[in-house]
């Protein structure tokens, strides 16, 4: 491999974050108060990345995989130049466009049209250049009738379509793609597939961060597996994805014990009377949330996670719903009955139902049942490559 072929070279990159113990340390008062004290006492050092090195060649489709919190997002941000490495070097050769998130700079108060220009500018397009491709962008996003409406009136799916449509116009030598790109309905995902296939033909270098091993095997030429801030495997996508799955082995064997259900939580509020109904069109889950506490339990969210072969494939939660954004509450010894409905796109799946209690310190899990529901169906519409948010309709009955 000649040196010219290397478009990104990462050498001994380390990244430490210094986390203050208190949130208030951002104010001048605490800065003055703490001025006399030793700094080490105030900060915890988090080693997000430890000595990462690899090269990426021109035209390569390079996968970065790892569990949540393994450091892969930090690595992506360092590659994108958003974070600076604490030590080590990253050399980039060519124009790099990051898609850490779609629709960067989108402003809800502006119209769809204005947002296209704004987002386009962040990707390096002049007004003229956007003018030239504007119709294509709108057509690709299928939003012809909505472009003069304010973005805040768009559904989240429409926003993503618009953002993706602008993003696909970006001309770059290197694309950094985070898996958050992968949202939208089945039709739109098809378009994303096409786009990825197209990129491969044009010889664009793509760095792709994902949890989805089937995507890694299908698209990537090479991949690295990151765990605890270190590269623990580097090489063939098939090998890397096997190694990745091995990380989950302890959990997997636990889960597979016949009929075993794991349940834990603090127990201030718990699930009771869980039942489900599975029809051709819908999956309906009914359950009660019962308070076991003497005080009102506030800020509760319910998460629905769907697993297939022990891999998280999709999910949704009440916190994304209107009226439940800040969570709901149960007063002492109250019982609330809920019905959640999902469209039926599942194949074989197991389901985990989680009840979260959010408070200032983070998330306390009140009750988690894994799996709450488990069964097989003949439907093989399972959503794979792209994470989708399932439409959820949620009602309370008395």
């Amino acid at each position, binding site marked *: 491999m000649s040196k010219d072929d290397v478009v990104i070279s990462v050498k001994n990159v380390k990244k430490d974050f210094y986390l203050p113990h208190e949130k208030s340390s951002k*104010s*001048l008062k605490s800065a003055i108060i703490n001025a006399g004290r030793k700094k080490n006492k105030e900060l915890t050092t988090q080693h997000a990345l430890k000595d990462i090195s690899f090269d990426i060649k021109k035209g390569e489709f390079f996968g970065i995989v790892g569990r949540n919190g393994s450091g892969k997002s930090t690595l992506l941000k360092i590659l*994108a130049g*958003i974070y600076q490495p604490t030590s080590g070097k990253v050399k980039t050769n060519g124009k790099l466009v990051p898609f*850490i998130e779609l629709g960067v700079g989108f*402003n809800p108060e502006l119209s769809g049209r204005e947002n296209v220009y*704004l987002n386009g500018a962040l990707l390096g397009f002049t007004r003229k250049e956007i003018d030239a491709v504007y119709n294509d962008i709108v057509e690709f996003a299928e939003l012809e009738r909505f472009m003069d409406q304010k973005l805040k009136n768009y559904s989240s799916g429409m926003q993503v379509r618009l953002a993706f449509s602008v993003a696909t116009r970006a001309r770059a030598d290197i694309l950094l793609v985070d898996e958050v790109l992968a949202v939208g309905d089945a039709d739109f995902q098809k378009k994303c597939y096409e786009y990825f296939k197209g990129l491969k033909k044009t010889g664009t270098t793509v760095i792709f961060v994902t949890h989805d091993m089937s995507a890694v095997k299908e698209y990537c030429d090479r991949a690295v597996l990151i765990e605890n801030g270190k590269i623990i495997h580097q090489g063939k996508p098939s090998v890397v994805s096997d190694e990745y799955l091995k990380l989950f082995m302890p959990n997997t064997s636990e889960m597979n014990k016949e009929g075993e259900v794991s349940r834990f939580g603090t127990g201030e509020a718990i699930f009771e009377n869980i039942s489900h109904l599975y029809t051709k069109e819908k999956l309906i889950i009914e359950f009660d949330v019962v308070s076991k506490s003497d005080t009102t339990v506030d800020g509760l969210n319910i998460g629905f996670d769907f697993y297939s072969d022990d891999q998280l494939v999709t999910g949704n939660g009440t916190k994304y719903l209107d009226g439940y954004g800040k969570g709901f509450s149960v007063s002492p010894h109250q019982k609330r009955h809920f019905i959640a409905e999902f469209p039926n796109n599942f194949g074989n799946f197991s389901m985990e139902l989680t009840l979260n209690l959010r408070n200032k310190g983070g998330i306390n899990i009140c009750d988690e049942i894994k799996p709450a529901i488990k069964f097989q169906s003949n439907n093989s519409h399972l959503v794979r490559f792209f994470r989708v948010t399932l439409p959820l309709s949620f009602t309370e009955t008395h």
Partner: protein
Amino acid sequence: MNYSNLVNKYRYSLILLRELVITEFKLRYQGSVLGYLWSLLKPLFLFVILYFVFVHFLKVGSDVPNWPIALLFGIVLWNFFSEITNNGVGSVVSRGDMIRKINFPKYIIVISSSVSAFINLLLNLVVLTIFIIFADVDMRWVALLTPLFILELFTFGLGLAFILSTLFVKFRDMNYIWEIITQALFYGSAVIYPLSMIADPNVGLAKLILLSPITQSIQDARWALIDPANVTAATIGSSLWMHVFPFALSVVTLAFGAWLFKKNSPYFAENI
């Protein structure tokens, strides 16, 4: 870095600057009935209030010909300075979401907020021109110097905006502190009263106040555009270094601000 890279680098900055300014302008008065008119009405109302309080009742400024016009001019320039710095403080933090998602030249954020302030100034100067035409202001050639003083004020304000926005990322008290300082500067900078009020009993104090680029540029602009009776460093016989000092301070502030901002901006994403 070769030439074409350099061009590309600034091309991106310019594209971005333009879009951010347009966005800021569109968003500013969105949903309000009078819209952009507010950026004219605000200083005009302040002018009317101050005119009645100071000029009409307290009889301030009777020794300076066309003082009401000079007062309006001062308020317009002050607003410009105050807008650059006060918008500047929070500008970086308010774009935090963008900074965490994409790598772009961060200084564009501060510059775009100051350009918005500059556009506002231009609109206000249109109103001022109308007043000047109707009032009995004697136009002289030195009026051509006015842009120089506005540029100086811009330089000083932009430098402060760089410093303040950098500090605000780490010290979230900065905006409150700056608000208070702005208040003090407003009353201390001879914006709403003629500097001659201070200079007559105490020339030394007037000379000292004129070391501030704010007072100096406003007074020099009034002297050049409105009436030579407005007190400047030249009219009260400051020494040469006192003439040069405010200009030098403006340039040094901008240079220091730009340096501080550049040094810290790579870490904005993780510190915001």
